[in-house]
C-alpha cells in the first residue's frame, strides 16, 4: 500500500510544492505549542518533585518537541496543490491523507491570510470556499506574490465558469 491516494489520480498532475519556508514555520509553531504544554506541565511537576520536576519537564519537552518536529516536517512534505483546467487539487496529510478537488466554477470566496509567524517568514495562506459548509480548502505557505497570483487566477477562472449551487 505504498501508493498514495493522490498518486492514483488519473492523468498527469503537476503538483506544485509549498514554499521552502513552510517547514521552518510549522516546526517553529509546533515547538512553541509544545513549549506551552511543557510550561503548563512544569508547575505541577515542580510542586510534586521539587526542582527535579523542572528537569523532567525539560526532558519531556526535548523528546516531545523532537518527535513533533519530525512529524511536522514530514507532514509539510505531503502538502501540494495542482491547478488543472477545470479544478484545483489540494493534497495533504501524513496519517490521514486528504485530497480535495474544488472546481473553479463553484468557488464563492477566496481569502488570503497570514499569521504572525507566517508573516515573519513572508508566507501567505490561500483559503478557497465553496457554498458547501465546512468545505474550506486551504493552500498554506505560499510566497505572497505566488499566493496573490494564485488568487487572481482562481478569481478569473471562477468568474469565467460560474456554476450554480
Amino acid at each position: 500500500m505504498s501508493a498514495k491516494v493522490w498518486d492514483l489520480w488519473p492523468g498527469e498532475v503537476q503538483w506544485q510544492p509549498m514554499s521552502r519556508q513552510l517547514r521552518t514555520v510549522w516546526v517553529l509553531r509546533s515547538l512553541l505549542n509544545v513549549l506551552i504544554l511543557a510550561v503548563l506541565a512544569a508547575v505541577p511537576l515542580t510542586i510534586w518533585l521539587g526542582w527535579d520536576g523542572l528537569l523532567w519537564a525539560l526532558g519531556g519537552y526535548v523528546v516531545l518537541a523532537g518527535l513533533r518536529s519530525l512529524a511536522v516536517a514530514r507532514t509539510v512534505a505531503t502538502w501540494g496543490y495542482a491547478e488543472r483546467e477545470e479544478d484545483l487539487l489540494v493534497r495533504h496529510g501524513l496519517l490521514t491523507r486528504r485530497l480535495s478537488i474544488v472546481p473553479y466554477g463553484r468557488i464563492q470566496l477566496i481569502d488570503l491570510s497570514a499569521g504572525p509567524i507566517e508573516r515573519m517568514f513572508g508566507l501567505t495562506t490561500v483559503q478557497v470556499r465553496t457554498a458547501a459548509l465546512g468545505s474550506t480548502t486551504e493552500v498554506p505557505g505560499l510566497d505572497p506574490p505566488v499566493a496573490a497570483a494564485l488568487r487572481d487566477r482562481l478569481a478569473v477562472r471562477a468568474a469565467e465558469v460560474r456554476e450554480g449551487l
Partner: protein
Amino acid sequence: MTGQVPERPDAAVREEPAPPLADLPYGPEPAPAGPSAPPAGAARQRLHPLTPLLESFRFFAAAAAAVGIQVFTSQNFLFAVYVAVAAAVVGGIASLIALQYRGFVIWGPELHIYSGVLTRSHRTVPLDRLQSVDLVRPLRARPFGLAQLNIEVAGGDGTDARLAYLKVDRALALRAELLAIAGRPIAAAPEPEADAAPAEAAAPAEAGPGALIPPVPVRRLAVASLLEALPVQVTALAVFGTAFAVTGYFFGFSTVATTVWFGFLAPALLGYVQSTVATVNRFLRNCRFRLSRDGGSLLVERGLTDTSHETVPVDRVTAVNFDEPVLWRSRQWRRVEVWTAAVAQQGGGAVKSTMMLPVGDPGQVALVAAESVPELPSVFAVERPPRRARWRMPVAWKRTGAALDERVFVVRHGVLVNTYVAVPYARIQSVRVVQGPFQRLQGLATVRAMTAGGLGHDAVARHRDVREAVAMAAELRERADAAAALERPRLS
C-alpha cells in the same frame, strides 16, 4: 522577508479592469439599473396589527399565569381587572409604535424588510437568490387567521428572513408575488417540465386536483410512525429494564430505586420521553400532507396543529433522501426528503430538509422522486464496499454502497434507518477523498461529495477501494462539469 501584508502587491492590479471573459455573458441578464434602495417615502406594506402581541406571546402567557396565581391566592379579582386594563393600554400603545417601524417594501428585484424601534434594522433580500418561501401557521396565530412567511436565500445561519404576521390570503398572494419575481428567469428557461405544468399551476393552492399524490391515510402514517419509533423504544425500555433489574439484584431494589433513580435513570427517562414527544410531534406535523406542483416548484402543505406551506424550487434541489426504517422494509414503505441550499433555523434544528413524502409505497416514491429531480429513478443498484471493509461495519456492510447513476451520485448507508442519498451531478460543489491510517493499511478510502448548505447531507461513500475511490472522484468531477454545462448557467 519583511512583515509585508500580502495584499499589497496586487492592490494596483485590482484597480485595472478584469481580463476579458468568455464571449457569451453567463447568467441571467443584469436587472435594469435602478435605485438599489427604495426612497425613504416608498409606501411600506404593514404587517398585521396583532403581530407584536403574538410575538410576545410567551411573555403574555407568563404574565397571565403570574396574575392568575396572584388572583387565586389573594382572592383579589379587582387586581386582575386593573392588570388587564393596564396590559391592554400599554400593549396597544407599544404595538402601535412598533408597527410604525415595521414593514416591508418590494422594490425591483429586492425585498426590503424594516424592523426595530430602538435598534432599527433594514434587511435587503435579493429575490433572485431566493431558495424558497415557506408559509407557516403557528398554533397561536391560527385563531386569528394569520400566517408567517419564511423567506430563505442560500447560505448558512441568519440568512433567512421572516415576515410575521400576515393574513393568510395576503400571505399566499405575497408568496406568489415573491416567487414570481424570483422565478421570472427560471420560467423563461426552456425546461421540459415547465411545459407540462401550466394546467396544474393554474389550479389554486387550496384545490384538490393539483395534488401529485393521494393524501397519505392517517392510519398508515400512524402505523409508520409507530414502526419507526418501535426499535428505539424497545431498545430503550430493554436497557432501562435490564439496568434496573441487574442493579436491583445486586444492591437491593429499594436502594437502587432511591439512589440510582435520581442519578441516572431519571435523566435517561427524560431523554426517552423527549424522543417519544418528538415522534408524536413529527406525526402531527406530517398529518394532512399534500404535495402539488406549481410551475417549476413543488408545494408542500402539512400539519395538524401547526400548518406549514413550503415551496421547493425544483432546480434548487441539492439532494434527495430515501429513508427506510428497519421495520418498514417488509412493507416496502419509504420516506422521501429533499434538501435545498438553504439552511433554516425553523424548528430550532440547524439542518433542515423538506419532507416530500412522509410515507409511501414504491409507486408513490417513484412518482415523488421523478418530480423532485427530473427523471430521477427511485430504485438504485449500488455497489457495496469491498469485502475486506466488512469488519468495520459488520451490520451495515450489506446495506452500504455507492453508485454513479446516470444523473445522480447515489450513496446508501445506515442500519436502523437505511438511507439512499441521491445528489444530482450538477449540484456537487467539491469532492474530497480521505484516507485514514487504517484505511491505508487496507487500501480503502472514503469519497465525499459536498453540496451547498449543511454538512448533514453530503453524499459520503465510505470505505471504497482506493483505486475505485479516486476514479470515482475524478468521474464525479467530470460528470459535475458536464451536468453544469448542460444547465442554463445562472448566477445563484
